[in-house]
């Protein structure tokens, strides 16, 4: 995973609540066995509507997505964050995020920025009024601002997620540092627990 530090770019306003992962990427595109190439299917159904904001050329190259509460709800498909990232998004700002989606994003370095609804509304209005608005998300200082302006908004991030994102850490390697703990745990597991293989 590449480190995530500071993101600056056009912000795409998607003012909808409960955006589910079936909308982010429909199931028919989950058949690919690679991690890349999903960006072209991002919001596939909604994009068929010409007035959908993703089709607005003024937001071309957007790196920040601003949306409503419970973003990423529904299916656990990691293809949803893959599609957002492959399309070019590096951060999503919303009042709240679904749990599995949040974990998936942390694993791939897509930064989630939770802000209260009224602060999200301010950013949504700015992005809707002026598509050239450059939004800056700074992970180190946990702040969101608009380029050229002096105010900023602070957001919460899990300290461990922050540490991993800033340093681009692979958490399987981190876990394997606890190999001795895992083996010790395994040694004391009761043998009535189920096994999927019948051993002789």
């Amino acid at each position: 995973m590449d480190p995530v530090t500071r993101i600056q770019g056009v912000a795409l306003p998607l003012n909808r609540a409960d955006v589910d992962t079936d909308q982010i990427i429909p199931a028919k595109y989950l058949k690919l066995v690679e991690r890349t190439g999903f960006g072209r299917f991002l919001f596939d159904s909604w994009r068929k509507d010409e007035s959908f904001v993703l089709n607005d050329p003024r937001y071309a190259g957007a790196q920040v997505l601003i949306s409503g509460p419970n973003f990423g709800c529904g299916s656990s498909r990691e293809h949803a964050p893959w599609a957002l990232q492959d399309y070019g998004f590096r951060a999503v700002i919303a009042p709240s995020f679904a749990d599995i989606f949040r974990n998936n994003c942390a694993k791939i370095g897509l930064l989630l920025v939770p802000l209260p609804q009224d602060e999200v509304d301010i950013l949504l209005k700015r992005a809707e009024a002026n598509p050239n608005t450059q939004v800056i998300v700074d992970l180190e200082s946990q702040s969101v601002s608009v380029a050229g302006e002096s105010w900023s908004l602070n957001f919460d991030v899990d300290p461990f997620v922050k540490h991993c994102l800033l340093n681009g850490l692979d958490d399987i390697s981190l876990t394997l540092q606890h190999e001795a703990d895992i083996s010790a745990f395994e040694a004391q597991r009761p043998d009535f627990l189920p096994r999927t293989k019948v051993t002789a």
Partner: protein
Amino acid sequence: MSDPKTLSEKIWDAHVVHSEAGQPDLLYVDLHLVHEVTSAQAFEALRMAGRKVRRPDLTIATADHNVPTADRDKPWPDPLSIQQVDVLDANVGQFDLTYFGVNDVRQGIVHVIGPEQGLTQPGLTIVCGDSHTATHGALGALAIGIGTSEVEHVLATQTLPQARPKTMAVEVNGELAQGVVAKDVILSIIRTIGVSGGIGHVIEYRGDTIRSLSMEGRMTVCNMSIEGGARAGLVAPDDKTFAYLEGRPFAPKGQDWERALDYWRSLPTDDAAKFDKTVSLRAEDIEPSVTWGTTPAQSVNVTGHVPDPDSFADPGARELGWRSLRYMDLQPNTAIEDISLDRVFIGSCTNSRIEDLRSAASVVRGYKVSPKVSAMVVPGSGLVKAQAEAEGLDQIFLEAGFEWRDAGCSMCLGMNPDFLLAGERCASTSNRNFEGRQGPGGRTHLVSPQMAAAAAINGHFVDIRGWRRN
């Protein structure tokens, strides 16, 4: 004496491999369920890193999302589906995993086969790259849905770093009316807490109504925990749980059974334990439910009407309500029983177990499917199918004009040949009524198996409470 704990806290604490301030707990995983859609990239990453599957003996795989439910012996229509299942076949071979492949009678929806095989047991931590993993919580397991990177992590380490969730009690007490079933209970719960009410929480379903549900009914309730935003959902194990498990292929036997029982009986929430949040419902207030919109919280009683979004106080809900009605092509104040249907789907990890099929068949017996409706029944596993056929349920459905299919996820999610065409309206026993979930432009109404069966016969929704069984 240790602090009083809830069921989920007991399971959590018994599985912490490593804990450190400022970090998520590292949890041991007792059982990892794998299917074709969310595993290919995880196996590929293992190969690239030169890693093995740490515990093939705690891992089991099946193919369910892509598989056709008819004409399986003929060439599958979609080469990408063939490829995805072929990749799983190759991965289970290379990594030496137990596999219920397409031609195995035990193949089926991953959340149906775990309990059916007796692999799902009280007190276990279970993960699967699928959001409906909470289904296994019905047996008192802590079962969490994960993404592909997490699947890779579990394959490599048999552990998962997870932030400790909050606890939420959903209490349902009282007696359900005839015709009101587990699906109506969970739809009512989601209507009450909202689609994000459970974020960050594990829900324990409690109360005498929940206790009175069969194991299959508890699975239906736990299955849709994610639709309320919850990390997981579970029910304390009891004698009903133990009776369900005893004698199943992977359940403990002999001395092990006795030792397991001792452990399982220690699991229920201590009397003095506290939940972070509690929600209560009365069974008498629950009626047969039908979703009218595009989120699972947008449901009403079958005797009710499509709501007028302008009556919603919250501006966000108002906007979402109108968008949902436009998508669903419904007008405010339309009686639910006046909504006509094109398709009926009985199946999915929510409602495809033997009890679901029995209850649907009891409605269908002696009736014919409306000529306007195309209806199908898709058993959750090959073994459910065989059981249903042994009981003659297939004949009841076939004689009424239903299609009788092979096991799989089928029309729950539009990843296999079973999907809605644009504009088609479906009564479905599945779990999600999101836009396009059952196929682009398709319109989904979530209901119980009995309600779906009655709707198939009438061509529109009817109140199952007045149904005359033949």
